[in-house]
């Protein structure tokens, strides 16, 4: 397998972004006439130009490698959200909460990975990322069990593996 150079990788990510935008336009509109599809291509190109101008198409913000792993990661994330959601609901109803602050280490390499990890912590009910220092997060957890679940480092490993 030939090693992909930087330019071809960039072109590939541009094409992927274009396809994603066009699918998004199609889902929202649902038109199939040729003229309207043409207008759709024009509006997608306009958005593409705008985001190119805003420098939103850097390598870091459009990670091509993780796009195929993303659905599996989301399924795993839904499972985690469901589990800790049940715990949080039980805590709310029986009143045995004991809020506490903990610090968590992150081992992701780039900025996207760190933001991803912080968002995943906030997204699971019962834990909120308060402050992001370079590699450590300040996390507020609703109970001891939830903070211990976080400190087992499972979520950190999964998200680090995401952009290996």
């Amino acid at each position, binding site marked *: 397998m030939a090693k992909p150079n930087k330019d071809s990788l960039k072109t590939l990510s541009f094409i992927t972004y274009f396809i994603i935008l066009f699918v998004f336009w199609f889902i929202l509109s649902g038109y199939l006439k040729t003229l309207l599809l043409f207008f759709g291509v024009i509006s997608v190109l306009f958005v593409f130009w705008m985001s190119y101008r805003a420098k939103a198409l850097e390598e870091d913000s459009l990670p091509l490698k993780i796009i195929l792993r993303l659905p599996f990661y989301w399924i795993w994330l839904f499972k985690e959200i469901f589990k800790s959601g049940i715990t949080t609901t039980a805590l709310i109803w029986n*009143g045995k909460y004991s809020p506490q602050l903990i610090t968590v280490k992150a081992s992701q390499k780039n900025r996207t990975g760190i933001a991803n990890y912080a968002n995943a912590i906030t997204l699971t009910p019962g834990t909120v*990322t*308060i402050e992001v220092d370079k590699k450590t997060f300040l996390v507020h957890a609703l109970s001891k069990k939830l903070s211990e679940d976080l400190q087992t480092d499972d979520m950190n490993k999964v998200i680090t593996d995401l952009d290996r």
Partner: protein
Amino acid sequence: MSYNYIELITLILLAIGCFFILSGSLGLIKLPDVFSRIHAAGLIDTLGSGFIVLALIIYSGFSLLSLKLLLIPIFLIFTSPVTGHSIALFAHESGYKPKGKNKN
């Protein structure tokens, strides 16, 4: 008496979603300080709206409409942690201390 299976599943999922929204609202009143209340709000955002949208997708059948409905939780996944994080950060920066051990 014959049940329509799709309506039955929709009913159950809607009930689960409503239960999570009820628990989240209860937690919003009951929990002690601002940081803990964000957890309750997050419960509504993720599980409450998630189950209700899932029920609506199953009810509407798999068409373009259900794809549009699927966009709602995808946007919530990206926006809800940002709001929770910004509220928590602002409370932390302006000097609120999270309450430690409660009565229980």
